[in-house]
């Protein structure tokens, strides 16, 4: 639980987009600011608890949809409260933020304070696969994953019933489409819907 997990592909964080995911039942709002810095935040406005993933990425701040409170990239500090235009929010008023490291084309975070333990990979031209969402707990998914020299898979435990499989491939002759077909078969097998 305190270890580091991938929670998105780096290019999932499109310009001015707020990406919605979860890790161990904790909902996360991920967004990239206009300078390219990625943020991993709790998906919860400290004002009324509304999901920040419903809000707007303004480029260097994220704005909550509910009352328009704005929060700064990096620190998560509240920068503006529209109902109180002259008021400077206190430093304590902030979104809960999590560590964020981009590596191997994926965005990684941890909910604890563990030292960064993102796996090292051999030198190769890794391509990032389409992440596969599986409606099964990560323990059930893990038992189906098999070792392959050209493919590395990482598991994101979304919550007790859902997981996401992230993957990297070092073999450029296999298309993203065929990797996706492989992961789709794996998903169907795990979910018990395979014919």
């Amino acid at each position: 639980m305190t270890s580091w997990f991938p929670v998105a592909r780096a290019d999932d964080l499109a310009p001015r987009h707020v990406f919605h995911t979860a890790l161990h039942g904790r909902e996360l709002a991920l967004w990239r600011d206009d300078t390219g810095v990625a943020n991993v935040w709790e998906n919860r406005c400290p004002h009324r608890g509304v999901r920040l993933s419903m809000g707007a990425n303004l480029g260097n701040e994220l704005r909550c949809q509910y009352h328009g409170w704005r929060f700064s990239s990096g620190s998560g500090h509240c920068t503006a409260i529209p109902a109180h235009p002259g008021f400077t929010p206190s430093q304590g008023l902030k979104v809960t933020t999590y560590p964020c490291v981009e590596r191997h084309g994926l965005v990684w975070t941890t909910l604890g304070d563990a030292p960064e333990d993102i796996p090292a990979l051999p030198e190769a031209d890794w391509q990032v696969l389409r992440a596969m969402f599986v409606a099964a707990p990560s323990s059930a998914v893990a038992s189906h994953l098999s070792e392959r020299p050209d493919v590395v898979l990482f598991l994101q435990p979304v919550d007790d019933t859902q997981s996401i499989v992230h993957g990297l491939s070092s073999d450029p002759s296999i298309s993203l489409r065929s990797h996706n077909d492989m992961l789709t078969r794996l998903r169907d097998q795990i979910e018990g819907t395979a014919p």
Partner: protein
Amino acid sequence: MITLSGSPLSREVYRARLLLDLAGLPYEKGEGRDLRIDAHGEVFDDAWRALSRLAPPDWQADGRWFAFARRLAASPASVALFRELDEHLWFGEQAGEPWLCGDRPSIADIGCFPEVMMSEQAGLSRLPYPALRRWADRLRRLPGFTVMPGIYTLPGSI
């Protein structure tokens, strides 16, 4: 002249209104709760027929994805359909074709949009469908985009 009537809460009315707003077709608002479109004397009470008939050439869709939109509207909480849509849009993004029928939005995108945005009310979270969420952001940033209750606009273009 085109006149559009119907409840602001109706997805069918919203579908028709989105086409008129996004394609920049001028229209007036009429009275009445039921969907009714009077386009230069031709009357529609079916949003899908109106989409096909009124869409300018650059808003037409290929048959597969227009038919898909109709299936989605008939099964608005189908995990299988949401998965198919997300996969198609993800590979489209990779190929530089961010819309359902390629590099421009069409009536297939408009047809799918209300069900996608209302999926949480139907009990279906959009968390597992990242490409679908990015597509919805793109659509909400198109010039002329208008909202219905429960669907917000997004600020500015990118």
